[in-house]
């Protein structure tokens, strides 16, 4: 392996595979970590606020902004007419995502204008004074309404097909068709959207944007302003959470701030209130999955046909790749011998849904796990048995619906170990006994796996750059295209560089992500941050290292192989030169101590038209066992225990990776249980703040929570130090909780019926499922 260099006895502080603290931890706990709203504002800073539409689908009959303009403190009001070039911030250039709605509004909460005032409070008060009249048009709010209305698709659907599914289904000994409604999810990053634009000379503008995708914000702002990309600089030191919600969505705010800043030649900051943030920006897609599965007596899947209808909202945004990824994960960890999967990305008159941790994958995986449940309840077996019977296996059972061969599956071992360590079998049989007593409280347990494909399915995004400077004093400045949103990316990439040079981590300073330092970056998304930027940084470090080795071998007349970087300094032949000394000497000898690194993921390709290719470089795996109790009188539940075994390859930083697993799991549980997006019949989102939209609290986490990394795992591919991506996959481990609740519900009908719990499984849905199963002939409690 490539991470094997190890000098006897000593190690540098903060190299790879060590549990370093987050590089900003001290600043987080003291309040010193600076987020965009904390930055010192230059004198003359103005504040923008958006005016949002109050109709789900309507023509704008009239717009009277006189009261807005004359409100105290107001400096300017911007509408679509004030946009110098293109009124569009569509990340896929679909020209369907205006900065400001013009003539027509497409969802309740769509930005129609912005007001700029001396203070944020003044701008906010003024925005409420607009008088806009609407001529209502028919609105399709949800998936069913969109299908009924024959709504168009926001993007071309995807079809994945292999084998002869019609025949397989027709010939199967057992066949079940059903459907599942899967709710969306708001990101609820604690720091809401914000952008702060400072005008520069000529056409230039610098924008501090809370974005996972600075290059995209740069490009879209340059198009809105009608200037070249080189005039727009986008920077971000850190975000207070992103989760995909700050991939495409920040462009709107960056564009409004930049537009106003250039127009008024004053700094302009825009920060919506939490309610407006939730109403006006996209979320995880709701899905309706319709499935038809054929299987044999042992529960082996013979054929699957599935349709994945998604509420995309009013525009394409990232719905194409999101719904594609749902299909890529519709198999989860299971081999489908014959399969046909279709996406249905529906246009609806709701906010345009967007990226969210897992990016469609979780909805696909959830559909697969529902299919497993259906089979298990139909055959009267433990769902775990069905899972094991269908895992990807040796040749003949190793090809995905998109024709990529699964060569790295470790689920047999991983699930086996977890089943053992969590004492699954004994606990399951104890639970069956407990439920037999027929009390108000019922229990359930479920073990669910995840297999998650790593790489952007848009192959060109799988590239990254880094910029590395070594200064004369031996200190190192690291910059790369990845953004820090709490996931510890800056720490992990710095560890890679520390390890390359064999210097302590505190020698390295990572600076804010900036489009001026590394250009043409990809979003920090798809769990790819460390894989891509770690490699790019390593490339930069290796370049400098190579120059230093050549310099040292020449200066001290040894061969290049005799120059090695160790924790005690650089060994040059028989002598050891301190790193600082080497750098000082190299500078005097005019060695170039700066490098731009680059990386592109090898071996991946994808033909969307054919539905064939190798879209993923590798897969990350994991599994969770959750046990729950439910109250059959109220539908309330509690997670008694969760055990997780997760695969991060050879971890760059086990502490940070474990944090991603724990946090991702709890976020997944929230998605499937208490987080409910509720629109009224007018198309208004009514759960638009933490008072009404309930993400998990400390008391919602499992009463016992055991999380372990599969320490024996090592990426088969040559990723950065053989690690694996970790951001998204653990979210899907939350499915174990849903399925455990489902088992507890099923107990009221003696497990004869699949409860078909839709999500989020709020206490209400759980109680109604209990009542439904009892009505179908289950025993009374």
């Amino acid at each position, binding site marked *: 392996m490539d991470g094997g260099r190890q000098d006897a006895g000593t190690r540098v502080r903060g190299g790879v595979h060590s549990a370093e*603290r987050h590089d900003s931890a001290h600043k987080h706990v003291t309040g010193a970590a600076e987020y965009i709203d904390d930055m010192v504002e230059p004198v003359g800073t103005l504040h923008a606020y958006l005016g949002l539409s109050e109709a789900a689908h309507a023509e704008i009959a009239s717009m009277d902004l006189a009261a807005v303009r004359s409100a105290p403190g107001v400096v300017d009001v911007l509408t679509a007419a004030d946009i110098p070039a293109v009124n569009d911030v569509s990340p896929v250039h679909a020209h369907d995502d205006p900065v400001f709605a013009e003539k027509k509004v497409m969802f309740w909460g769509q930005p129609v204008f912005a007001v700029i005032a001396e203070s944020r*409070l003044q701008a906010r008060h003024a925005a409420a004074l607009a008088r806009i009249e609407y001529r209502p048009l028919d609105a399709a709010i949800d998936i069913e309404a969109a299908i009924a209305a024959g709504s168009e698709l926001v993007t071309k659907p995807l079809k994945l097909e292999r084998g002869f599914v019609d025949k397989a289904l027709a010939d199967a000994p057992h066949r079940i068709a059903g459907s599942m409604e899967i709710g969306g999810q708001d990101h609820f990053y604690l*720091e809401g959207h914000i952008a702060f634009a400072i005008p520069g000379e000529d056409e230039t503008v610098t924008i501090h944007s809370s974005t996972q995708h600075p290059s995209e914000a740069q490009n879209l702002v340059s198009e809105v302003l009608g200037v070249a990309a080189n005039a727009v600089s986008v920077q971000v030191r850190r975000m207070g959470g992103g989760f995909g919600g700050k991939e495409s969505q920040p462009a709107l705010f960056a564009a409004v701030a930049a537009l106003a800043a250039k127009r008024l030649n004053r700094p302009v900051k825009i920060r919506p209130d939490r309610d407006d943030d939730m109403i006006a920006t996209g979320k995880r897609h709701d899905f309706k999955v319709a499935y038809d599965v054929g299987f044999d007596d042992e529960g082996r899947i013979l054929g699957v046909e599935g349709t994945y209808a998604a509420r995309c909202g009013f525009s394409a945004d990232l719905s194409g790749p999101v719904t594609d990824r749902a299909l890529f994960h519709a198999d989860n960890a299971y081999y489908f011998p014959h399969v046909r999967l279709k996406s249905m990305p529906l246009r609806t008159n709701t906010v345009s849904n967007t990226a969210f941790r897992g990016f469609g994958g979780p909805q696909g995986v959830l559909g697969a796990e529902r299919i497993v449940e259906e089979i298990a309840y139909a055959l009267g077996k433990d769902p775990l048995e069905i899972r094991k019977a269908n895992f990807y296996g040796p040749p003949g059972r190793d090809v995905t619906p998109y024709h990529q061969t699964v060569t790295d599956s470790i689920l047999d071992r991983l699930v086996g170990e977890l089943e053992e360590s969590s004492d699954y079998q004994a606990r399951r049989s104890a639970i069956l006994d407990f439920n037999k007593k027929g009390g108000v409280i019922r229990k359930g347990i479920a073990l669910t796996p995840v297999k998650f494909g790593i790489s952007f399915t848009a192959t060109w995004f799988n590239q990254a750059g880094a910029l590395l400077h070594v200064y004369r004093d031996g200190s190192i400045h690291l910059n790369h295209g990845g953004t820090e949103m*709490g996931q510890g990316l800056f720490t992990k990439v710095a560890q890679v560089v520390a390890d390359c040079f064999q210097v302590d981590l505190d020698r390295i300073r990572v600076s804010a992500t900036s489009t001026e330092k590394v250009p043409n970056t990809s979003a920090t998304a798809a769990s790819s941050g460390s894989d891509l930027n770690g490699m790019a940084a390593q490339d930069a470090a290796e370049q400098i290292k190579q120059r230093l080795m050549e310099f040292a071998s020449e200066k001290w007349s040894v061969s290049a192989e005799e120059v090695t970087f160790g924790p005690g300094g650089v060994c040059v032949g028989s002598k050891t030169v301190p790193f600082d000394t080497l750098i000082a000497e190299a500078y005097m000898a005019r060695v170039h101590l700066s490098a731009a690194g680059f990386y592109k993921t090898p071996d991946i390709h994808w033909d969307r038209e054919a539905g064939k290719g190798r879209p993923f470089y590798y897969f990350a795996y994991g599994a969770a066992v959750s046990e729950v109790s439910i109250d059959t009188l109220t539908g309330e539940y509690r997670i008694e225990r969760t055990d997780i075994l997760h695969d991060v390859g050879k971890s760059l930083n086990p502490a*940070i990776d474990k944090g991603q697993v724990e946090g991702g799991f709890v976020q997944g549980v929230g998605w499937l249980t208490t987080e409910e997006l509720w629109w009224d019949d007018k198309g208004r989102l009514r*759960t638009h703040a933490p008072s*009404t939209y309930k993400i998990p609290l400390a008391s919602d986490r499992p009463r016992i929570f055991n999380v372990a990394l599969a320490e024996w795992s090592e990426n088969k591919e040559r990723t950065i130090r053989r690690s694996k991506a970790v951001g998204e996959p653990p979210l899907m481990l939350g499915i174990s909780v849903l399925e455990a609740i489902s088992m507890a519900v099923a107990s009221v009908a003696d497990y004869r019926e699949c409860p078909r719990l839709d999500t989020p499984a709020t206490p209400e849905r759980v109680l109604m499922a209990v009542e439904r199963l009892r009505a179908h002939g289950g025993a009374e409690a």
Partner: protein
Amino acid sequence: MARGEIRFLLNDREIRLGAVGAGDTLLDHLRLDQRLRGTKEGCAEGDCGACTVLVGRRAGGTIRYETVNACIRLLASVDLCHVVTVEYLRGPEGGLHAVQQAMVDHHGSQCGFCTPGVVMSLYALWMEAGCTSVEAVETALQGNLCRCTGYEPIIRAALEASKTAPDGDFLVAERARVLAQLAGMNDGARVMVSRDESTAILPANAGDLALILGEYKDATIVAGSTDVGLWVTKHMRDISPAIFITHLEELKRISVEEGIVTLGAGVSYSDAAPVIAEHFPHLPEFWSRIGGWQVRNMGTVGGNIANGSPIGDTPPVLIALDAELTLRRAEGSRRIPLEDFFIDYGKQDRAPDEFVEAVHIPLRAAGSLNAAYKISKRRDEDISAVCGAFSLVVKDGMVTSARLAFGGMAATPKRATSAEAALVDQPWSEASVRAAMAALSDDFSPLSDWRASAEYRSRVAANLLLRFYLETTGSQPARLSA
């Protein structure tokens, strides 16, 4: 003679402000005026806790420091208080505080945005009670949302921090000096401050409050501001003139006399918790699910009643306990049954110049059966979908009196009179309970909204009666353990 400025301590500085509007928030003052930007705005409605700071107020000869949400805490109300922000936190040698160090060591922060608020909540718990159990830490964090960590490392950090004792802590050491300083700032006068024609008034005492209400009939009475704060931050309502009452000692009185517990209108949920636990053993678990910790520190029982919400947590509980209310005005006071206070949605039996002075809760007769249940999407810090509170007297197996009150089922908190009638003079049996469950449909036709459907509300309301029966008669658990 009114004082024209508010006075408070902000960390180690004395602040005097004359230009303060009715709706100015503590958070905006900290972030915009004082440039103390460690305290974050996450939601501006008191639900995420990113803005958590400590407010120390004089109580019983010492200072009681409590976590509050600075986003909905109105600035005028910190008059004569000590406001402590994350910037002031420090360890014995000036480095990280034990709570902060543990958060670093246990990887308790990821994006870091919720972290200052989390640190302040943990610090308050650590200082006042110790982070000694997982349950205590979870309760302290009921008002703090974290979207990154899943909380596990935060809990580990809190338990680790409790290994350091708070004896030598800086706020403990400073307490006498701070107390003296606050006492020195107190002139006992009415306070009246304004900014841009928006006025905040802090009466000198309860009598002064009555006088002021007589003069300003359109005034907004502000107690804990856990609801009024949102009128300002979310509805952008002008609440001027606002009359603040939680500093009034007369309204903070708690007494137990002649079989009646009396809570002054300014008593917070946290203030009331010990006496409630002592005299109403069925209530502590329910009480700890009202809001989050910050909200319980700010919010008052009187305010929960006075704002008349159909989904307030305490009215059904107090109605079931047959509580009464004292309303006061300059001319005198009157006492009414609490259930009569709620006339209709948004309409209460309170004249514009009246204020809620106290609520009186009779102790329960020995042998009575009591329960209070709250059903919500999320266990903690959520608003009830349905709240059910029941008080029965059962003699020789027969129900002799029944008070069944519900929240979330009608336009006001309301008794289920048909269901009560189905129980009274009947044996306390499952058959009687099933009859009462059926009768509930005569009592209520609830609404569907984002918290719950009408169908669920009706079903759960009935099932709560069954839970009550099972809990009072059976041996099997009839609900999830706390």
